């Protein structure tokens, strides 16, 4: 067995590997001094990090719960109890249905435009990750579409594909960021196939 990657070592220490793999890794570490040393290094890093985070957390003074919750802006929301909530209950689906109908109509009319309609976005993703400047709202569908398009691009680019399949693992980590769990599994399988043949 080849030496264990840093990423696997970290997963191992965090209890994030399956029991089958766990045994394999443990057996290798027992035999390999290099991996033993590397494992201890990572153990050290994790210990120090956890210690420091605890120290940092201890030094933070938390505001009282009352000061957070009893601010004048919040109170109305706590005490507000609508007597027409049953109406909301029925009205909401009706409005939603109407909205969907309008959207569908819209979609039929403007199909050639292929405009993407975002539904209930509730998470912000940043285009420029170093600056938190341009934020836009996206939804699950968008993320999936994006990941799929990335995968397609990787597929179509032969050089890139070969680098992933026959290159080093380190290179893979740059791309893994963009892939879903299934995609990663697929690539791992492909790599294992090429290794065994």
């Amino acid at each position, binding site marked *: 067995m080849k030496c264990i990657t840093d990423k696997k070592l970290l997963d191992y220490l965090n209890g994030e590997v399956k029991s089958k793999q766990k045994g394999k890794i443990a057996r290798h570490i027992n035999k390999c001094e290099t991996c033993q040393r590397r494992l201890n290094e990572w153990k050290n890093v994790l210990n120090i990090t956890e210690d420091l985070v605890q120290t940092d957390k201890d030094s933070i003074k938390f505001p009282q719960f009352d000061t957070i919750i009893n601010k004048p802006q919040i109170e109305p929301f706590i005490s507000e109890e609508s007597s027409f909530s049953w109406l909301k209950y029925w009205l909401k689906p009706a409005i939603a249905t109407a909205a969907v109908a309008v959207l569908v109509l819209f979609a039929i009319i403007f199909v050639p435009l292929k405009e993407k309609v975002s539904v209930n976005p509730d998470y*912000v993703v940043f285009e420029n990750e170093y600056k938190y400047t341009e934020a836009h709202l996206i939804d699950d569908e968008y993320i999936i579409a994006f990941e799929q398009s990335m995968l397609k691009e990787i597929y179509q680019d032969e050089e890139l594909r070969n680098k992933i399949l026959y290159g080093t693992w380190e290179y893979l980590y740059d791309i893994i960021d963009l892939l*879903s769990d299934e995609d990663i599994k697929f690539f791992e399988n492909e790599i294992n196939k090429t290794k065994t043949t």
Partner: protein
Amino acid sequence: MERSELNLLIQKNYKKIFLLSVKMLKNYEDAEDATQEIFMKVYQNIDKFKQESKLFTWLYRIALNHIYNFSNKKRNVKNLNEKNQNFYIRTNETPEKVLYEKELYNKLNEIIEELSPKQKEVFLLRYYNGLKFDEIAKILKKSLGTIKSNYFFAMQKIKKELEKEQLLETKEVS
């Protein structure tokens, strides 16, 4: 969704949300404001809460969303000076040990600042909020593999920096 249930959720999580705000915004006053506004938003949007996502996942999503918008609007004028922050000292330790720990502590805070936003987000949620990887994945709507990669890159950076400063050797492995 019962209001009492919501109140309980807020009571249980306000420290965690405050902690996240402090680490992201690096300013106590801003963090307090942001935490308040987050819970206000939660009350306002409770009918948008989709039952299929866990309430706590939803809370974190609102929180992160708000913190990012907050830091967008308000470039912190008064940054919390990490070096002057109260440093927690354990009394039964030698001055050398205290100094060493303080150095480590400052270094870690520096490194956290240098992480990419994605890495920082995962690091804070993992270590400061004590969340599991699959919980983080759900909150950020990313695959588990992506979250673990972000975490790995963050830890790799931390390890490299600590090695560069030779802060790793003095501490023994337990």
